[in-house]
């Protein structure tokens, strides 16, 4: 009997596991966390040495205060070329972040992924918010003025806050002095050449040398010869630029075009593997090197790039491995393959992929030739206009800038600044600089969402000055808005975007 009771008891215990669970429990709602940045900022560029301050908003479904929350701010190097095995660093465990961007863990020009983790201690459930940080220096944005200091090169910068930083290059590159400068090249779009992580590019060209400097740190990155598969025997670069065949709003580099010692070199980039550098000199359509290229490059889509041969007084279409003549159907207004005049100036017009080219003939008569670099099979013509210019003294101009906003070319002669209108073929004396100053360089900076500017560099005999004019939407201005002085002789200038 006792044994039977024992067996029944054991069986009862065993069969109790077969009891159907009705699941009618009382559930307690969990506290759900939601984190967001009140400014909606996810991508942050911050200057090395500055303090990063972040105060995300936290909302909770059941709790009213944050006593039961723990916080963690963690970063890791998320740069394209960095290893995936780099360490993670917790930089703060506070509700809000206020941390100075210094080494370690931050390194100038690197990208970081910042993770904000908020955990409810009662449930152990965490919520996350992510930021992308790019560590920049104060030279991320602004005007760059390339200066010739008695045969040595340097550059200064005008920062967005209006302060001028002099001797920027020499202060950052004391071990790599620059020789006599001739040209500043800034590429406004990303270049993927696999020589270094994708980036916008800055090249500094000198009379017999050149270099690439880091877009982020402004420090010398590559010697000029290293940019080529085989360094040219003679190095006298006048252009080192990229053109884009993109038709979308976001441009990306397609073909690099160098003019060195008057000869064209190219560099094809794209989504293919292998090295990408500049190659050997291209031969002319006649299969020789009897050409001298002017320091102007017109980019396009149908025709990737066009250059002008000052020796044979004609244009060439730049291909990957050869210079080509334009098809005869491309020329109706004038002959692209036989212009027969001296090129004074060439730059973008106010219509995308259209160019203004100022020439003079053998009698010193100026002509404006307009052309485009886009065509179709049905409409192959590229030539748009050839007109004798009603532009006083333009053949003696010391600087020019074609507006990409309005149909104007601004040019300087002595201390006078003129505005030539391409549509009406008329010229207006726009501004007169103080006596003794000579206009040496002009640059038009189009601001699609703001006020476009014309920057004018003058030389007083002892220093360069830079005047900025706010240009109206009809291309007009009366006087300058700012002037900066104290520069050595400025040979070129450009605007660097972040």
């Amino acid at each position, binding site marked *: 009997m*006792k*044994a039977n009771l*024992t*067996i029944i008891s*054991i069986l009862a215990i*065993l069969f109790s596991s077969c009891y159907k669970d009705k699941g009618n429990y009382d559930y307690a709602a969990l506290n759900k966390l939601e984190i967001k940045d009140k400014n909606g900022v996810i991508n942050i560029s911050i200057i090395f040495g500055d303090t990063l301050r972040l105060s995300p908003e936290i909302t909770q479904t059941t709790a009213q205060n944050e006593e039961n929350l723990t916080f963690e701010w963690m970063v890791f190097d998320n740069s394209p070329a960095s290893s995936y095995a780099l360490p993670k660093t917790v930089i703060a465990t506070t509700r809000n972040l206020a941390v100075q961007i210094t080494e370690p863990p931050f390194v100038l020009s690197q990208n970081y992924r910042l993770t904000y983790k908020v955990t409810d201690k009662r449930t152990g459930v965490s919520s996350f918010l992510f930021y992308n940080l790019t560590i920049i220096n104060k030279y991320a944005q602004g005007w760059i003025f390339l200066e010739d200091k008695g045969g040595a090169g340097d550059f200064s910068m005008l920062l967005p806050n209006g302060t001028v930083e002099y001797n920027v290059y020499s202060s950052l590159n004391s071990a790599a002095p620059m020789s006599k400068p001739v040209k500043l090249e800034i590429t406004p779009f990303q270049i993927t050449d696999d020589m270094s992580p994708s980036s916008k590019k800055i090249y500094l060209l000198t009379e017999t040398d050149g270099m690439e400097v880091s877009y982020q740190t402004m420090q010398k990155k590559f010697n000029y010869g290293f940019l080529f*598969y*085989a360094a040219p025997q003679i190095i006298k670069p006048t252009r080192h630029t990229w053109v884009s065949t993109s038709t979308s709003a976001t441009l990306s580099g397609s073909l690099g075009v160098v003019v060195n010692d008057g000869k064209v070199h*190219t*560099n*094809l*980039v*794209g989504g*293919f*593997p*292998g*090295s*990408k*550098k500049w*190659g*050997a*000199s*291209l*031969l002319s359509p006649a*299969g*020789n*090197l009897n050409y001298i290229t002017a320091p102007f490059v017109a980019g396009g889509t149908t025709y990737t790039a066009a250059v002008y041969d000052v020796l044979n007084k004609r244009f060439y279409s730049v291909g*990957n*491995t*050869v210079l080509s003549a334009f098809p005869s159907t491309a020329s109706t207004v004038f002959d692209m393959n036989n212009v027969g005049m001296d090129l004074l100036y060439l730059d973008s017009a106010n219509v995308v992929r259209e160019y203004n080219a100022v020439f003079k003939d053998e009698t010193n008569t100026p002509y404006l030739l307009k052309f485009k670099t886009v065509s179709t099979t049905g409409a192959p013509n590229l030539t748009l206009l050839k007109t004798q210019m009603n532009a006083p003294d333009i053949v003696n101009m010391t600087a020019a800038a074609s507006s990409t906003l309005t149909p104007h070319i601004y040019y300087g002669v002595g201390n006078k600044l003129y505005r030539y209108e391409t549509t009406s073929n008329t010229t207006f004396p726009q501004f007169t600089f103080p006596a003794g100053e000579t206009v040496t360089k002009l640059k038009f900076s189009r601001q699609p969402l703001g006020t476009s500017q014309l920057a004018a560099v003058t030389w007083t005999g002892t220093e360069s000055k830079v005047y900025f004019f706010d240009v109206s939407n009809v291309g007009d201005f009366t006087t300058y808005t700012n002037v900066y002085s104290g520069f050595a002789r400025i040979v070129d200038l450009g605007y660097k975007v972040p």
Partner: protein
Amino acid sequence: MRSYIYYFLLLTAILAACGKDNRVMYKEDPRIYFSKFATNPDSTDYSFGVKPVGLLTDTAYLTFRIMGTAVDKDREIKVTIADSSKAKAGYHYNLGPLVMPANAYEVRVPVYLYRKPGLKDSIVTIDFTIEESKDFKPGYNDKPGLNVYDRLHYKISLNDQLLKPASWDSRLALSFGVYSKTKFNFMIVTTGKTDWNSTIFPGDQNFLIQTVKLSLYNYEQANGPMLDENGVRVVFP
């Protein structure tokens, strides 16, 4: 006494469920095959003809890769040379040690090649086949890409002549035009490139085209037109 028997039987039945199962794991035979990729083509076409005259020996490599996991001891690889091979072991070539090192998944075994007079007018081949060794069975035998040979076979062809690259008509002719020995030799001398059969990426290809065109222009400036072995002027399109 009976109740104890009941207890015993019941506890035995209950505790039987507590036994630990042996995990059933897949265990494959260690195998080995020739690793072949675009940059490591199925067959090596080696010519002393594109090398400096003084070079009397050079090295090609057989790349072996294992299937399964690495082990902590050296393992033997076995290959046989097919009867179709014309190259003589010890005369035209010697093979490095056929060993997969401990803890390795891949090994490159050197094949030492020797420049012999007969290679001027003949092509000899070494036809390798992976066989079962005491450590490895043959791996898989698919033909990756457009390869002629599967992953269990490898062929090295050896000569001392300037031979037309196999890919000339299909790939190189577009950029370099009609083949001739004179032209090909000029291309090798001016670019320094000796392997024209493997993949050439677009950036490198552009540089090669630019270089041969410029070099030919400079040659003609100094010497006049270059004629090939057929008396035809060498040109690049």
